[in-house]
């Protein structure tokens, strides 16, 4: 518009209009709903379907949750209080809380010990999980923790775990002394030294020194058993998994084939058959007279199971490393153990961490299978003593829901951590 034409039109606005808010359909909630829920007709149908599903789920569950009875001595008393109304009978959880967590045979006056061990677990793994936040010195406690936890949970003389630790330390010193000459020498020397120390200290009178009341393994139960099996087997299976993965990558055909056969065999059979082995067969393969308790046999089998899976994850990590890394290690003149220890494994393990966490979560969930071989873990407690008792015969939903919730919280927490870690590791890898 030039000035020339200004007089030729009837009206010219001379001041700017105030900015108008966008139309109601293009802003706020409405806009969000339009673009996110009702953008097209199929989308709208999907939304309505989803709403309907949500509604029917909530309308069923909400009154059951809200009307729940938390204090009643038995199911029949609970039904009396409810008087026909919908409502959960959550008093089974409060009544049997300790049984659900610790099993029914763990002495009740000793519950503080596993609880303390559980709390300390967080202190112990914190420097491993959040290695940037916590001081490295806390790793010392992590190293002590397994022995401490064993002492707390199983009780007995403190000398047993202490001597086990001494053996390990001796092994480490021998390893450190010889590793400069040859890795194999250091490694095997360390193992021999550890066993020698254990063998010698086995003759020491360990009874009664700083002793906590001993608790037998078969008295473990409830969610505690799941946690014990999960954490012990995962931490044990990582070194075995690394060894198997390296063995499978090895250029020595016999070692390679031993590892391949082991891994493929374990991965080809269901865990439950391995548990059957632990339960009914393994005893035949042990020297006559020895008698491992069931929990130890189960730990052996689950560790074998987990090692095979972790080996495959680590093999993936090894394969994902660029070939240049191997060649670089060779060209520096490093021998095989040095190359692995200093160059390959640190990188390969880092890539494998998310996979290892996945295996760990899967394994932790699979520890519920021990209920099938008459061990009283959380699911075993529910299916066995609690549902069989006269008071709580018929309380399925509350118990199963509780078990599902416990596992969900734990596993979801771990997988969220794993995703966080993945992002963490990604940023510095570029």
């Amino acid at each position, binding site marked *: 518009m030039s000035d020339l034409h200004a007089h030729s039109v009837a009206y010219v606005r001379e001041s700017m209009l105030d900015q108008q808010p966008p139309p109601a359909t293009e802003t706020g909630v409405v806009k969000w709903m339009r*673009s*996110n*829920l009702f*953008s097209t007709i199929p*989308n709208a149908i*999907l*939304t309505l379907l*989803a*709403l309907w*599903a*949500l509604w029917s789920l909530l309308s069923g569950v909400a009154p059951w949750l809200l009307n729940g009875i938390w204090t009643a001595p038995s199911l029949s008393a609970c039904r009396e209080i409810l008087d026909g109304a919908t409502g959960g009978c959550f008093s089974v959880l409060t009544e049997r809380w300790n049984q659900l967590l610790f099993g029914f045979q763990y002495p009740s006056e000793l519950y503080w010990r596993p609880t303390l061990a559980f709390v300390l677990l967080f202190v112990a793994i914190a420097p491993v999980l959040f290695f940037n936040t916590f001081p490295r010195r806390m790793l010392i406690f992590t190293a002590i923790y397994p022995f401490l936890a064993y002492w707390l949970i199983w009780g007995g003389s403190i000398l047993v775990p202490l001597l086990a630790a001494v053996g390990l330390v001796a092994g480490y010193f021998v390893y450190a002394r010889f590793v400069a000459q040859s890795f194999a020498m250091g490694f095997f020397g360390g193992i021999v030294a550890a066993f020698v120390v254990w063998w010698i200290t086995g003759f020491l009178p360990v009874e009664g020194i700083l002793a906590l009341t001993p608790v037998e393994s078969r008295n473990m139960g409830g969610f505690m058993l799941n946690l014990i099996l999960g954490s012990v087997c995962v931490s044990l299976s990582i070194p075995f998994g690394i060894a198997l993965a390296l063995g499978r990558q090895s*250029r*020595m*055909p*016999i*070692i390679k084939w*031993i590892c391949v056969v082991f891994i*493929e*065999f374990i*991965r*080809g*059979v*269901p*865990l*439950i*058959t391995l548990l*059957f*082995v632990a339960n*009914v*067969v393994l*005893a*035949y*393969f*042990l*020297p*006559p007279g020895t008698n491992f308790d069931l929990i130890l046999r189960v730990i052996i089998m689950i560790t074998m199971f987990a090692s095979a899976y972790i080996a495959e994850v680590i093999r993936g990590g090894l394969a994902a490393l660029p070939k240049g890394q191997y060649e670089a290690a*060779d060209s520096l*003149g490093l*021998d*095989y153990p040095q*190359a692995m220890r200093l160059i390959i494994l640190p990188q390969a393990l880092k890539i494998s961490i998310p996979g290892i966490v996945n295996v760990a*979560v899967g394994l932790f*969930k*699979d520890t*519920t*299978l021990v*209920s*099938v071989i008459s061990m009283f873990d959380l*699911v075993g407690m529910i*299916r066995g003593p609690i549902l069989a008792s006269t008071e709580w015969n018929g309380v*399925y*939903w509350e118990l*199963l829901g509780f*078990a*599902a919730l416990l*596992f*969900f919280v734990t*596993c*979801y927490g771990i*997988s969220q951590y794993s995703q966080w870690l993945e992002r963490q590791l990604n940023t510095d890898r570029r």
Partner: protein
Amino acid sequence: MASLSDPQGSESSFRLSMLLNDTRYRSYTFQFIALVCVALLFAYLGSNLAANLRAAGLSISYDFLGDPSGYDINQALLPYTSQSTHLRASLVGLLNTLLVSILACITATLIGVTAGVLRLSNNWLVSKLMAAYVELFRNVPVLIWIIIIFTIMTAVAPAPSAFRGDNPDANMLFGAIAFTNRGVYVPKPLLDPLGWVVVAVFVASIIGAILYRRHARKRLYADGTLLPTTWPTLAIVFLPALVAYVILGRPITLELPELGGFNFSGGINLLGSLIALWFALAIYTGAFIAENVRAGILSVSRGQTEAAAALGLRPRRIMNLVILPQALRVIVPPLISHYLNITKNSSLAIAVGYMDLTGTLGGITLNQTGRAIETILLLMLFYLAISLTISALMNVYNNAVRLKER
């Protein structure tokens, strides 16, 4: 590894220390040690086994496989009575394992693909709901899901007695399908000899439809003619069979389930335990597959979608023709391991009383004969055979869909 530093044949004399220090021989030393260790381990276990068996006065024998089993199995795909042998009972169990695994694999794939695609939908509510499904099912043990779904089946579905009376509490769907807490009773097709002709026509028309679609695609690639596919395919598949059915005088009839005595009789009974196990495995594994599908779709770069859109393809065609074929390369390998997992997890059937391999061979046969070592060894071998077969088959497929790199 460091072969350059090896002395090259200058000294032919062999010293014992070379076994440890010379890289040419060292690997043999290690392998020999490993072999000896493994052999010693097995010898140790074997001698323990022999000693234990001798102490208990037992022996290893597979003769029990030929003895009559003495128990009944509620779902037998082979002719089976309680007078059949233990071996036959195991085979019945094996088939039941395969049946539930195959059903669960198919269903899990369907659920997983649907949930994975929907999770990427731009519908906020739906994608959140699918995320909730995936997280909820992935993070709770499958055993708990199996028990929960089985409990839902028995507690929510009506008992057959609810169908009884003039004004029953429950009714059959279309008067033909009954959902009870013992399972689902569906009509069973009865075939006359002529009925087989109809079936043959139907199979032939399916082949015809596939051929037609292939022809249509060839034309599309050759000269760009877009032949209609949906309606002709439907017509080719159903019309001839329908015509044959009418012309031959309706030779196929349905046997409807009828309530009589304690149970429904007639029709096909899908056992409650089968359905519970099937759905539990399918929904559980579906959550994992959904994550794979999502990862696979995300792995296809956005440029592909945009390029396809720029060419004027509709969203559905973009998904079917551009994204999914590329995503498959990422999706298929983990899918194989999920199928294996389903097969292995189907051994949890004993929690719901489904008579699979673990229920027959590893369950009642083991209980009745007390032959623990033999049955468990056989059980493991059966599962190993299934697993190896599945991974072999799926690897063949995997190689077929792999991108042919030039």
